[in-house]
């Protein structure tokens, strides 16, 4: 065997310590959600829930969108945790696209109704959505980043984009509980736009956030 490789092998054996095995992606996603939901509830309480929340809970359209947002967040988290486990089928990255499609379809249908009835008359800017989603998604995003760094950075950009989608999806779920904006067109542009923008930004930060934690040359040679 090559001497340098032999040295590396010896070093790896010398530095071997017991490790805590990572739970399965679905268990980790459940743990992430269990940490994120209380924070989202706290933010909703601090920002004070919207006055018509009880009525909205019986609105089928609102509920479909909220459930789709939550499931998008959860499936994106499962997919993100699966992409850091070597040997997993990479097609799992497509998992959140089904609930995302339901979410988009529901918003799209509402948009069509608005556009055919009033056109763009009711469209206005709503810059509150982006910082609000960031506020609600901060703790879930940080938790996600910490949890992702324990895995293997096989596809860093895809992994962080999925993590970002999970946090932003959860953020949007929380936002709609205190932000009284229900026009599908506005929700599609400002809220979904913010979610997709945050997903894109997280994806771009992939290589910065997730790197192989390798030994330095001194450790190798030691």
């Amino acid at each position, binding site marked *: 065997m090559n001497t340098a490789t032999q040295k590396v*092998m010896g070093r*790896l054996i010398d530095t071997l310590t017991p490790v805590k095995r990572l739970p399965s992606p679905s268990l980790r996603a459940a743990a992430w959600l269990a940490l994120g939901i209380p924070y989202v509830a706290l933010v909703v309480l601090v920002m004070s829930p919207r006055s018509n929340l009880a009525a909205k809970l019986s609105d089928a359209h609102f509920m479909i969108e909220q459930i789709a947002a939550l499931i998008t967040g959860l499936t994106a988290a499962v997919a993100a945790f699966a992409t850091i486990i070597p*040997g997993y089928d990479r097609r799992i990255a497509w998992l959140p696209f089904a609930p995302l499609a339901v979410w988009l379809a529901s918003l799209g249908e509402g948009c069509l109704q608005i556009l055919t009835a009033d056109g763009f008359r009711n469209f206005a800017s709503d810059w509150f959505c982006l910082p609000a989603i960031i506020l609600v998604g901060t703790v879930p995003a940080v938790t996600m980043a910490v949890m992702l760094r324990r895995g*293997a950075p096989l596809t860093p950009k895809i992994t962080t984009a999925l993590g970002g989608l999970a946090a932003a999806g959860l953020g949007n779920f929380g936002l709609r509980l205190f932000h009284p904006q229900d026009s599908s067109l506005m929700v599609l542009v400002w809220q979904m736009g913010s979610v997709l923008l945050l997903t894109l930004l997280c994806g771009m930060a992939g290589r910065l956030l997730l790197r192989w934690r390798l030994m330095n040359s001194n450790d190798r040679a030691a």
Partner: protein
Amino acid sequence: MLNEPELTSRRRPHLVRTEPSIVAENENLASGANLFRNRLLDRIRDRSMTQQANDPTLERLMQAAQTGDARAYECLLSDVIPRLRRMIQSQRRFLGPAEIEDILQDVLISMHSVRATYDPQRPFMPWLLAIARNRLADGGRKWARRAANEVLVDEVPVTFADDRANSEQERQFDSEGLRKAMSDLPPRQREAVEMLKLREMSLNEAAAESGMSVGSLKVAVHRGIAALRKALVKDQ
């Protein structure tokens, strides 16, 4: 060896000039067929490696390694290193032995750093091969970057041909003067400079050998270097 693909691509236009269409078409067909055959062979080899290694021992060894069993880890590494080397060699035929060993070491270190992600319920070899393929891709990117930005030269010029430049170099590396200045240093400073600067020992190693504390070694080497500088400048 690294320049071979470049040479081949430079020769190609000459061949094309003699029999433009037929040669180019044949070359394309041949290279396409070769590429396809190589990929197919790689895939078959990969699959057979996974099948051969579908031996529960590897799973058990890795499971034991996760609990900190160094003996099991040693067995595991001894088993997988030759397989990984063969895999890297088959997929990176254009690399030299040293570069193949570099990639192999990267794969081993990467595997070590993410060993917590292995689930004993799943087969070991696909887990390891996923890491290996990822590191191979990274290694390929690194190699491509290096090939694009670095120029290979047979011999690096040590100094400039100009006399004025050489006189400056020689004055700085006046070995006789340096030896004399070293012998004039107080023993502790000399010892510190010898260990830390000439023998390139770490502070901890030097402290263990000399019996001095790390702090006093730092002070001694700092004063020693200052004294040497002063002595050499005075001599000039």
